[in-house]
């Protein structure tokens, strides 16, 4: 569904992404993980049209969409949430979601009705509450609902679980699964490992702008390079020796 080929981008002296290539298969949940500053959100910004890469291409459903504007990509079927949520603060939850719903629905009444349906799917109540008065957890759901309302084929979730306590995280996991089950491909950036291991079919690991690993969750968890990226140089070796010593 989504193919990233050799994408590179630099900001001043920083090479944020360096020849990143990956493929997101249709119909599953794919995760993108990596230490802070690895370039995950930057990759999302490139894929969703907010940034144009210096090199490389992005292909969606076989078409080259590199550098296409965000609103046009949304119309083609790519929706994204933001790590730092930006709700339409002066508007109600229903009105917020309706903006997404309007993509395919010119009628105000239809958009508002669809917004209610999406809110239900996502588990949001209090439809007439102002977005500015929502809790963090509710705002994250709203962000998710808004993007979902555009009827995407590919949904990019940028740390949708960040800032949630364990109960709230457990409540969102089935929602994400349900979205996948309804036919939407999910590509998510996450730090909450429990969620990643639980949900993802495929995991890609980014470190310092480069893709260092990709595969099923279990394989990634024991990949030496991944361990080193998170725990530092030599950590994989230390862990292995410690494990052997414990068995001895």
């Amino acid at each position, binding site marked *: 569904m989504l193919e990233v080929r050799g994408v590179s981008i630099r900001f001043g002296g920083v090479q944020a992404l360096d020849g990143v290539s990956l493929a997101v298969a249709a119909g599953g949940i794919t995760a993108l993980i990596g230490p802070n500053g690895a370039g995950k959100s930057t990759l999302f910004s490139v894929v*969703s049209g*907010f940034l144009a890469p210096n090199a490389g291409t992005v292909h969606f459903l076989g078409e080259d969409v590199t550098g296409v*504007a*965000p*609103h046009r990509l*949304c*119309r083609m079927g790519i*929706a*994204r*949430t*933001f790590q730092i949520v*930006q*709700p*339409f*603060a*002066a*508007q109600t939850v229903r*009105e917020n979601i*309706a*903006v*997404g719903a*309007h*993509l395919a*629905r*010119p*009628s*105000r009444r239809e*958009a508002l009705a669809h917004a209610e349906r999406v809110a239900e799917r996502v588990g949001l109540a209090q439809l007439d509450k102002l977005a500015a008065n929502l809790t963090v957890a509710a705002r994250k759901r709203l962000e998710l609902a*808004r*993007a979902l*309302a*555009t009827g995407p084929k590919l949904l990019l979730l940028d740390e949708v679980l960040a800032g949630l306590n364990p109960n709230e995280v457990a409540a969102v996991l089935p929602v994400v699964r349900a979205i996948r089950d309804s036919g939407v491909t999910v590509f998510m950036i996450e730090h909450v490992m429990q969620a990643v291991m639980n949900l993802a079919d495929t995991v890609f690991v980014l470190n310092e702008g480069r893709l260092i690993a990709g595969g099923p969750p279990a394989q990634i968890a024991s990949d030496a390079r991944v361990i080193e990226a998170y725990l530092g140089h030599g950590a994989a070796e230390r862990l292995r020796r410690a494990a052997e010593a414990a068995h001895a």
Partner: protein
Amino acid sequence: MRELAAITALTIVVALLPAFVTSGFALNLAIMVLYTTLLGQAWNVLAGFGGQFSFGHALFFGTGAYASAALQVHLGVNAWLALPVAIACGAAAGAFVGALSFRYGLRGSYFALVTLAFAEVFRILANSVAFTGGGVGLLLPLKESAANLQFAGKAGFLYLILAFVLAGFLVSWWLKHSRFGAWLAAVRDSEESAAALGVDVFRVKLGAIALSAALMSAGGFFYVQYFHYIDPHIAYGPAVSVEALLGPIAGGLGTVFGPLLGAAMLQLLGELTRNLAGDAPGVSLVVYGVVLIGMVTFLPRGIAGLIARRGA
């Protein structure tokens, strides 16, 4: 829907006014309140609904006024024909400023500054060019007849301004209940999120400024018909730009009735000030300035916000 009912009721009340009120003073008061409302409605489209604060809205007012006046004075075109041309010119000016400003990502204070600069440029140009009459301005010859959109009594002008204000109300109502309006509010509240949700931010902003400019130029058209005179300072000077923003700020940004509430309140305050302080120039504007500061400090959502809070 209650809004539509209120709009209808208001329109009927005003339309019936001349049947019960014959005082020229009272009718003029009503006309001026509606005129200020129109200017406020225009500014409100871009600032209240769209979140882009323009400090040079006089640009569109003046363009509409001069287009209409020049056509009637130099080419003898009938006022009824001059009207759509004036509005088209105003909208074009809006699209021009919008295309430049939004293409280059101007927002907030920078956008306000650029609109101010454009208005100034046009004021200087109008001062130096022949077809605007230069510094002397243009005088609309008195030819009272409905066919010329000039009226002997005030009632005719009341209906003319009422028609424009009604259009303004309908536009404001439409912005609250349409897809375009939803997109515009999204752009106002978070451009990035709006883009991520499929909103063509540039097109939406452009549409908003053109719409706002069209309404504003209708105000310019009316001014020429009512006062028979236009000059660069009236047309493009800061006074009109300020007049346009005071009402919506006082009455409530981004609401349908804010501009009317604000205009009425300011007119009332003006009358009060005039009674207390006499006809000294500038005193009522001092009061308006204080009101502006006060509103922004204590009542950022205006009178309409106060009413909404009471109701909630």
